[in-house]
C-alpha cells in the first residue's frame, strides 16, 4: 500500500509513503498525538491513584 518505488534503479528515499506528503503529514500528527495522549493518560492514572489514598 505504501510503496514509494517501483524499482531499485537510481533510487533515493525509498521508505513507505516517501512520495506521499499527505500520508507523511498524517503520520506526523499521529505520532505527536500518541505522545500527548501518553502524558494525558499518565496524568489521569496519577489522579486516580492519588484520589484512592485520599479516601
Amino acid at each position, binding site marked *: 500500500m505504501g510503496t514509494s518505488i517501483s524499482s531499485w534503479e537510481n533510487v*533515493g*528515499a*525509498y521508505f513507505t509513503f516517501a512520495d506521499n506528503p499527505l500520508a507523511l503529514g498524517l503520520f506526523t500528527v499521529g505520532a505527536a498525538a*500518541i505522545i500527548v495522549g501518553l*502524558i494525558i493518560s499518565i496524568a489521569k492514572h496519577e489522579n486516580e*491513584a492519588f484520589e*484512592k*489514598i485520599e479516601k
Partner: protein
Amino acid sequence: MDNAPTLESLQATLDAQQAVFQMHQSMNVEVFYWWCTAIMIMIHAGFLAYEMGASRSKNALAAGIKNILALAVIIPTFYLFGWWIYNAFPNGFIPIEAAGALPWAQSMGPDVTDMGTGIFWAAFAMFGATTGSILSGAVIERIRVSAFLILTVFLGSVVWILAGAWGWHPDGWLLTDLGYHDVGASGVVHAVAGFFTLGVLINLGPRVGKFINGVAQTIAPHSLPMTLIGLMMIIFGFFGFLGGCIIFNGGETGWTTIYGNPTNLSAFAFNTLMGFAGGVIGCYIASRDPFWTMSGGLVGIISVAAGLDLYDPELAFIIAVVTGVLAVKFAKLIENFGIDDAVGAVSVHGFTGVWAVFLVGVFADGMPNVGDLPEISLMGQTIGAIVMAAVGFIPGYGISLILKKANALRVPKEAEELGLDEVEIIAKPYPEVNGVPAVTSSDVPNKLANSEPGV
C-alpha cells in the same frame, strides 16, 4: 599489445576504485556514529541504576519508570521537532530554511543516497535524552511523572538543542560572533540541563523530611552500591557521547571538531581519562563520600569537555581536581539555600558545565578558530557560559512554575509519605521481605504486585 590498457580504461578503473573508496568511507562514518549511539545507551542504563539506587526503596520503581519513559518520549519528539530546531535556529530565535529536517522530509527516513542524516539525528537524540536523565535524577521521589515528561520533552527536544544550534552548530551565532568553543558539550548539554534542573527544583521544593527547621538532613539512598555502579556505567557511556562530539569527515580532512578545527580521538582520549581521574580525586578530597567520589568522575570529564581538544593533559587533570572540590562546595551551597537536589545534578552538570566553558576562555584565550571566525576569548566564553545557564534556567523555572500553579507538578504529601511505588506503580521492587517468598494477588502470571494501585 592488443590487451594494453588505454588511458580511457585506466581512468575508468581509477573512477571505479574511487567510488568504492568513497562508499567505504561513508560506511565508516555511519559505523562510527552507530556505535557511539549504542555506547550512549549505556549512559541511560547508568542513570537508571543511579536514580533507582539513590531513591528510597519505596520509590525505586517510580524513579526507574520515569527515567525509561523520558528516553521513550525524547526520541520521537526529537524526531518531530528537535532536529529541525537544531538546523533552523543557528542565528537566534528567527528560523532559517531547514525543510530537510522536518519530520515529513525525504531525508528523515531510509534513503539510499543519504548516509549521514539518520546517524547524526540518532546521536543528537541521545544527547537530548542525556539532558532528560540529568533532570530525572534530581527530582526523584516527589515529582509527578506527567509533569516530568512535559518538562523533559521541553528540555530534551527544545531547550538544549536551541542552545546547541547557537553554540554547537557550524553557523551558530555564539561561534560566528564570539568564537565560542565547547567541543564536548559542557555548556550546550550539561550547563543547560543543570540550570534547567535548578529552575525546576526551586518550584518543586524539597522532599518531605529533607529540611528540619531549615537544617538539611541526609536522605540515604536505598542502594548506594547500585548508584555507584550506575555512575560507572555513565562514565562508560561518555566515551560514546564524546565520540559523537567529534566530526568524522570524508576526503583528506580527517577528524575535526564541530567547529571545523583539526583534532583527533587521541586528543580526546588524553583529556577524557585525565579529567575522569582528576574529578574522582577532587571530589574524594572534598567529601570522603563514596557517592561524591564516583560522581567526581563525571565532574572531571565535564570540567574538561569544553576544551577536550585543546588542553595539556596535566592541565586537564589539575582542572578536574580543582573542579571536583568546587563541585562539592557548590552542592553544599545550594543545599544551604533550601534546594533539595537528590543526586547533585545542578552541581555536577550545571555548575561544572558553566565553569568548564569559562575555563576554556581562561586557558585557551587567543586560540584561533578556522577561517574568518573570531578567536577563542575569555569574553566570548564568559558570555557563552552565561547564555547556557540562562537558556537552561529560564524555561526550567517558567514551565515548572506554570505546572505548579496548575497543581500538576508535585505528588500529594500523603503519596510521597506512603511511597510512589505503592501508590502508582503496580509492582514492587523487592517483594520478598526477610526471606519470605512473595505472594501474588494478581491473575496475571509473573506479576508480583497488587492489581489495584494503592491497595
